[in-house]
């Protein structure tokens, strides 16, 4: 499969995530759109590491370990995303407890 197909798939997913963040006001859905963007980038990282693994296998033989780095990187992105979600959902729950809404427009009081 040409790598361009994966690039365009990643771009489309990322732009859908950006559009969701810009159009929705529900804090939880904005959070889910951020997850969508993270996953678009993860998919691209895996596709690129696969492409480089093949290029390296041509030069160094089949025992090449090029390509693990991208997947390890994706693994760490997932770790950080999980930590982010736990803290972020705690913040949203606290916000709901104080304002009885998850509308992000309520957060404009942060500027005072």
């Amino acid at each position: 499969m040409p790598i361009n197909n994966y690039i365009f798939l990643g771009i489309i997913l990322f732009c859908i995530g950006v559009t969701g963040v810009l159009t929705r006001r529900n804090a939880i859905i904005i959070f889910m759109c951020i997850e969508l963007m993270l996953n678009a980038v993860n998919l691209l990282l895996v596709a690129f590491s696969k492409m480089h693994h093949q290029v390296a296998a041509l030069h160094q033989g089949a025992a090449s370990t090029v390509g693990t780095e991208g997947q390890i990187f994706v693994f760490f992105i997932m770790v950080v995303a999980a930590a982010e979600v736990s803290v972020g959902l705690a913040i949203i729950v606290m916000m709901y407890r104080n304002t009885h809404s998850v509308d992000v427009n309520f957060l404009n009081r942060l500027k005072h």
Partner: protein
Amino acid sequence: MSITQILFWFLSILTVFGALMVITRKNPVYSVLWLIITFMAISGHYILLNAQFLAIVNVIVYAGAIMVLFLFVIMLMNLDADAEPQKNKWLQLAGVVAGGCLLLILVASLKDAETKSKMAELGTGSIGLIQNLGQALFKTYVLPFEVSSVLFLSAMVGAVVIGKKN
């Protein structure tokens, strides 16, 4: 068209359709369910790219744990379709136009990139098996692995402190 190509296009359409449904559904519960389908399709992509370990981790961590957490929070708050306030239609339109412009610019700039002839061969190789990744993780990347465990611990403590009634 070979079977891997058919699988690639099927999974791509499923991913994009699921993502579109996530941002268009009014009810947040349906958004979460569509996001689970999107993550499952992305896991299918990982399997096609021979990243089997990442596919399993994606299903367990994202589609399992994180989405259950989202669903739990939504049901805890008793949100439904009319919980989202009426919003300005023009702002919404501006958001869609801005996202479309970003898509247009990214596609236009990467259309003629020099990666055009490079291929990501599907269904070959074993680099994504847990044996290879575990070797790399516990030899080269053992320090980031330990640091990430500290990060998890601090995130857990932070979530408890934030969620505690004051």
